């Protein structure tokens, strides 16, 4: 069973408004795929279908070889943090530990759970902030804490919704390294509206705007972008390696 995600003839609509139409798609295990497309094009909905939080109107979805709701425990999910209450009195550790819920009745955390949470925090390089308040972090730090929470679930498939929004440009590179590292042991699927960021590390690109098209990253060019976003765009080359040491002239 090599497929992490398998969709056959999947359609989904929100009260009569079609969001996804006749989607056929497979994502192999070990892939690092990015979902791109305009806002409102169905990226978040696509992730929620994979999590079983939304049910398709028709078609079949398999995640890690099983129905989405049955695979939940093997999937880590990072939602857009803008949807969370920023006044909430919780520490970083409190948030990360939520990834260990559902392992015991009543939700007590064991020593093992705390160790797993500390390990996840160190993987996203946030160990020093374990006792800081979640509401006092920067946008990029919050993203990393939410990724740690997803890692705490010990997932085989990691779903990230807009992990690059609110990340400072200087932090982006470090952030990419973390994701590339994680990709060694799990499949990663992330939604992003930032195409430039994507092509640096991602192995394949899934374009969603009601319909779904997959491209290997090397293929991305102006014609494809026009096709996805439905308008003329100027392409800006956006290599991250033209700074300081990594500057190449060939």
């Amino acid at each position, binding site marked *: 069973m090599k497929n992490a995600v398998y969709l056959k003839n999947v359609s989904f609509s929100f009260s009569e408004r079609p969001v996804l139409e006749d989607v056929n798609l497979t994502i192999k295990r070990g892939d690092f795929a990015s979902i791109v497309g305009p806002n409102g094009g169905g990226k978040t909905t696509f992730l929620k279908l994979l999590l079983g939080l939304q049910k398709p109107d028709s078609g079949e979805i398999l995640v890690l070889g099983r129905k989405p709701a049955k695979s939940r*425990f093997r999937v880590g999910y990072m939602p857009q943090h803008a949807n969370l209450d920023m006044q909430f009195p*919780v520490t970083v550790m409190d948030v990360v530990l*939520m990834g260990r*819920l559902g392992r015991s009745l*009543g*939700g007590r955390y064991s020593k093992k759970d705390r160790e797993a949470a500390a390990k996840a925090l160190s993987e996203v390089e946030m160990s020093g902030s374990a006792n800081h308040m979640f509401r006092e972090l920067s946008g990029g730090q919050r993203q990393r804490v939410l990724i740690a929470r997803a890692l705490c679930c010990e997932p085989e498939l990691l779903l990230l919704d807009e992990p690059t929004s609110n990340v400072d440009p200087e932090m982006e590179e470090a952030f990419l390294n973390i994701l590339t590292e994680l990709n060694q042991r799990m499949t990663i699927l992330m939604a992003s509206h930032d195409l430039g960021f994507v092509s640096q590390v991602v192995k394949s690109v899934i374009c969603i705007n009601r319909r779904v098209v997959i491209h290997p990253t090397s293929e991305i060019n102006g014609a494809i972008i026009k096709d996805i976003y439905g308008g003329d765009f100027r392409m800006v080359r956006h290599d991250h390696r033209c700074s300081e040491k990594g500057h190449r002239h060939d």
Partner: protein
Amino acid sequence: MTTVAVKKVIVMIEFITALSDPDNEFLRLALYIGALASLAFGIIGTYVVTRRISYLAGAIAHCVFGGIGAGIYLQTVVGLKWFDPIYGAVASAILAAVIIGMVSLYAEQREDTVIGALWAVGMAAGLLFMDMTPGYFDISSYLFGDILLLTERDVWMVAVLDAVILVLSIYFYNTLLAICFDDEFAKLRGIPAGAFFILLLCLTALTVVLLVRMVGIIMVIALLTLPAAVAGHFSKRLWQMMILAVFFCMAFTWSGLAVSYTYNLSSGPTIIAIAGTMYITVLIISRNWKKKRR
């Protein structure tokens, strides 16, 4: 000492003497119930504020009025002598909590309209039942609270409610925390988030019902949310917020009772006025403080 301070001390002494007067049994009862109620209010209020469901709690409180009306009707007109209006109030509060919870979970849009409708229909039903029942009812004691109506039975009922809330909120602390912070994620961890949400609304409903007599249907929501909202400004963790909310709630009710007794004012509105003033003050101070730190 300034004259104002001297006056304050005299007022306090008068209040304490009044407390020990055997004729003032109702005042002692109100203080006991105020203290016990603060535990329920502080814990449930924290959940209501962090889960952002004070509007739902408001609707539940107003549906309670329908239950009280139905209770009075059943007792007087139908002749069920054993049917105390409090049974009607509990039944209608739980029913309203379940309906409102379902609407909130499954109605994809227009949730606020449905809940607003339940809010008003609950009130209307209560008034209609009272119209159909012969005799005079002091509606204002239900709407605005009346500590003279408190009995020793209330002390026991609030104590039992406290015990239930304490046990559940300690046992399910982590789960409820996750549900209030991010219920979608909680669901993905296999937690029946919908069921816990309805449980939370039912506990809110019971808290509201048992304390309606103290501050009334209209103001009970303020006493549920204001102490927790004040506490939220000083808390780093959810449990700290609960403990502080219990403390603030007790401070508001006791000082409210003292002021209302001393100046011969209604107790409910006095308590709420003090809580509201504190909340606004804390809001303004913390805003200015944050600006200074930048």
